[in-house]
């Protein structure tokens, strides 16, 4: 046990002291936070600003209304030119080609009385979905307003009717909750775990390879057992991961409290505890797998080829994110969140969205622990033999033979 502690301590101290750790600890949240904030700001502030020509048909009033809506509407700030119907489409096409115009809209009057007119929209790029969606919305509002005005509804009344409804999401205890914030918390925890497990799991593999290439392990193995070395590495590298996540979470908590954002966010004590438990289990599981991969390979390149074994279950978990968020208690969610390699991520996600049955949590933890034990058993055997057999890449029958060898 003393040896495990010594190995873990060395592994921890040497990693904490590096500049890389400091940079990652500061930069990753800055970049991620900055990125999220930037995207959110752009999404909320961005108004369509395209330059559009509207070709007047037989209804000049309609064209004027559309112009007004697009220029000063709810989420558009476009520049709109109303051009007479006689303008040839070729001229407008030419203006688009010269970058003077982004799109043009042709009003095609309805053939029968009382029908809505249709619209032909020619954008520079048909992939510009945002602009066409904005225009669609604007046209819808204009037509509805005209229709209501035709039925004698006053303008403020019509505006009130068109307004979207407000949906207040309440928690079970009657408190006013912010469902978006809770979702983001679950999502961020999920990504955090995904990233750290992948990053630090690979660090275990790398640290083993580093010892193999620098041949340090031969000195170490003269005094300690491969199991102790393996355990020390997993604990030491894991400690670094936990430290980093701890720093991030505390910083995020302080920041949120400072900005008064914590009120709507509900990360309960239970959620925090389960996050810690599932993080530790998930980390231990993936590091054991990584340790086996590290023991089997001799270089980073070889490791890259094998790390799909770690990526596949993580990607699968990422794919399952959406179905679980929309329906956390469906049969699918229940089954996939019991798969040991996915459970640390998915069961934790279910815990933070809607608390599953206690037996489900107990079962998933039990399954993970059994799997960790099995993987460790296999890893330490591969490690013991593989580490002394450097120089050539093992094939599957050889690995199977190693398992028998103790």
């Amino acid at each position, binding site marked *: 046990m003393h*040896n495990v502690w*010594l190995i873990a301590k*060395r592994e921890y101290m*040497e990693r904490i002291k*590096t500049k890389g750790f400091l940079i990652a600890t500061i930069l990753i949240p800055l970049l991620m936070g900055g990125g999220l904030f930037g995207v959110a700001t752009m999404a909320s502030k961005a108004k369509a600003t395209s330059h559009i020509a509207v070709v007047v048909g037989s209804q000049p009033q309609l064209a004027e209304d559309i112009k007004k809506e697009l220029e000063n509407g709810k989420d558009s700030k476009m520049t709109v030119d109303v051009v007479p119907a006689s303008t040839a489409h070729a001229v407008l096409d030419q203006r688009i080609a010269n970058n003077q115009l982004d799109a043009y809209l042709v009003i095609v009057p309805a053939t029968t009385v009382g029908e809505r007119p249709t619209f032909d929209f020619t954008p520079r790029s048909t992939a510009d979905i945002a602009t066409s969606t904005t225009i669609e919305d604007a046209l819808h509002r204009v037509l509805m307003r005209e229709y209501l005005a035709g039925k004698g509804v006053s303008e403020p009344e019509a505006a009130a009717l068109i307004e979207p409804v407000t949906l207040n999401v309440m928690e079970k205890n009657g408190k006013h909750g912010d469902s978006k914030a809770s979702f983001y918390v679950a999502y961020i925890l999920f990504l955090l775990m995904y990233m750290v497990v992948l990053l630090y799991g690979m660090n275990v593999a790398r640290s083993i390879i580093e*010892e193999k290439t*620098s*041949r*340090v*392990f*031969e*000195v*170490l*193995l*003269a*005094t*300690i*057992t491969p199991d102790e070395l393996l355990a020390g590495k997993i604990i030491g590298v894991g400690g670094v991961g936990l430290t980093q996540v701890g720093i991030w979470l505390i910083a995020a908590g302080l920041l949120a409290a400072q900005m008064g954002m914590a009120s709507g966010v509900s990360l309960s004590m239970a959620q925090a505890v389960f996050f810690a438990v599932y993080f530790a289990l998930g980390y231990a599981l993936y590091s054991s797998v990584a340790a086996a991969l590290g023991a089997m390979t001799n270089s980073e390149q070889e490791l890259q080829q094998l790390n799909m074994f770690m990526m596949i279950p993580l990607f699968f978990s990422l794919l399952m994110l959406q179905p679980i968020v929309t329906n956390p208690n469906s049969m699918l969610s229940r089954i996939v969140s019991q798969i040991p390699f996915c459970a640390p991520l998915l069961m934790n996600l279910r815990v933070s969205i809607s608390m599953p049955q206690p037996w489900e949590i107990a079962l998933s933890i039990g399954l993970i622990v059994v799997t960790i034990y099995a993987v460790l058993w296999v890893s330490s055997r591969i490690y013991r033999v593989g580490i*002394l057999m450097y120089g050539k890449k093992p094939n599957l029958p050889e690995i199977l033979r190693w398992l028998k060898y103790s």
Partner: protein
Amino acid sequence: MPIVELEKIRKVYDTKVAVEGLSLTIEPGTMFGLLGPNGSGKTSTIRMMIGMTVPDSGTVRLFGKPFDRKALHRVGYLPEERGLYKKMKVIDQLVFLGQLHGLSETTARSRSLAWCERVEITEAIEKKTEELSKGMQQKIQFIAALLHEPELIVMDEPFSGLDPVNAELLQDTLIDLRKEGKAVLFSTHRMDQVEKMCDEIVLISRGKLVLSGSMREVKSSYERNRVHVVFSGDETFLRNAEVEEAKNYSGVAELKLHSEAGAQKVLAEAMARGTVIHRFEVKEPTLEEIFIERVRASFGDEEARGIVDA
């Protein structure tokens, strides 16, 4: 009580037999040389001796008891493939390795400092390993193997890659440790070192023991049929019937005779022909010659040519 007893150990890797029925005993206070050409099973033997691999059959006894990992605290090991943590400071590294061998942090630190002074690398203490020369790194590993004052010191090729000054420094250190009653085992290709330092030797080839015994026994079991001559003038005496093989390096000749008695006849012929003899020394074969001869015998002549590089 012998420090190491190997009895008929055998190790097979897949289809290759690495060690075949090897037995040897190391007593306290001996300098033990483990010799053999490349790939002869030296490292495999050492690894089984310190429990890094388990023999397929045969027994390993350390300090008079069947092998037990606890005994490893009394063993210092320098592997053939040198390795240190590149980014770690020398002193931290030594303290870490000392602690793994069961020392307290303070003892490990004070002994590391004392050893650094003894092998003249005090200026390296605060540096990172990657900033040091290869020879210095080797000295650090040498220290790491000795920090916990082991009773058995096992070194795989300890002097390879060192300049003569440093090689001698480490040789003297090992000789001092032997005087303190420790058992030292080392493997090497350098026969001059073995001849100078070792009390006992074992020569293995293809995993099998070819020759073993004390240095004196081994050498005295060979005839004194070698002659070292320094001369000037007529060299026809080199073709005397008593001479089995002669290598003449213009004025300095190494002769191998059919028998010990032939030396006087060769000298007499040289005198008769008026050759000026500056030096004429009759001696036993060098260890290197014995080594090459025995290894060749174990392989068959043709095969050995590419393998023996001693």
